[in-house]
């Protein structure tokens, strides 16, 4: 139970940081995990990279190129899961 709570808190923490990086890149007030990066938030290939690099700086990580396939990073949730693999 304790372990589950701590995982959930960890994911929420990642989500809040992802949210902060996205808002920092494109503006706005708040986002949800289900939003599509391109159609709902307006991230194109280039601003997606700005977000990716922002996440790398925030978490002190460097994503492997093989994890950065744009066809697999569709929603905010995908970014949260991607960061989760590294932290």
């Amino acid at each position: 139970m304790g372990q589950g709570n701590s995982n959930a808190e960890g994911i929420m923490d990642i989500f809040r940081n992802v949210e902060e990086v996205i808002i920092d890149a494109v503006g706005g007030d708040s986002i949800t995990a289900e939003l599509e990066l391109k159609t709902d938030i307006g991230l194109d290939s280039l601003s997606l990279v700005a977000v990716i690099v922002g996440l790398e700086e925030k978490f002190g990580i460097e994503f492997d190129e093989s994890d950065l396939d744009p066809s697999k990073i569709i929603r905010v949730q995908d970014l949260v899961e991607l960061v989760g693999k590294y932290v």
Partner: protein
Amino acid sequence: MNREALGKVLSLSCVENYFLGYFQERFDVRPLYAESFVPFREVMTAFLNEGVSYENYPLVRLQETSEKLGLTEHRYSEKFHYQKNKLNLIRVNREFFNRSKLLPWRADHYIAIEKVKDGYAYWNNYPLSEGRMSENRTNEIYDGAYLIFQEKGEFSEHKYRELCALQYARIANQSVDEVRITEEKLVDLRDALLVLKVLRKRITAWLAFEADNKRFDGDLSFQIHTEKLIQLYERILVEIQLQIVRKKSDIGKINEKLLQLCEQERLWGKAIQMRRG
């Protein structure tokens, strides 16, 4: 018009963005892509050797094709006078962006507006946003240029077939030279690929329209070709931009991906020729 639609349309300028967002709710916009094929080599040469940039690449704009086909007409004015039941675009000054972190590529940027009680609703394609503003705020951000588009509804099948014949011929004649770049051309390459990616998506949509009208065989294997091509564009764009932002270039890797892209372009062009009805 809705914000979600603006994020999905195949535009290469703000005006094209609102134009598609607005008229796709009124008619099938896919015939508008009948002039969207530009050979790979032509785009590469323009960006890599002729100093063309993303914001000034001389493409035939969709609104021009639309007028040629008799679908819409437009009027330009320096004086803003809102017109109901039409697409109203106003050019905005820098004041409009004072609360935004992103700026558009071009200095002359338009937003779409619609009259509502106590002011205007607006849509902005970059950064993607929508909202409301008062008459006063509208006057503050207005930059002296006003575009109005309206549906004409006189689609010329003859003109459309003429444009299609030219486009099929251009695709058939495309030769894809292998491209190799050096580090200082990385940004130019990125911009060329951004344009090409949108153009290829437009051709895909146009061919789907042709397939619906039994003039093209858009079978599953063709769809797989196309998907592979577009994914390759996306992947290489992310790779280039990462190298630019991280300031760590690996031109060998980019050139390798460019070779794959050229090969995929060749296969895609051949696949189109083979499937023309």
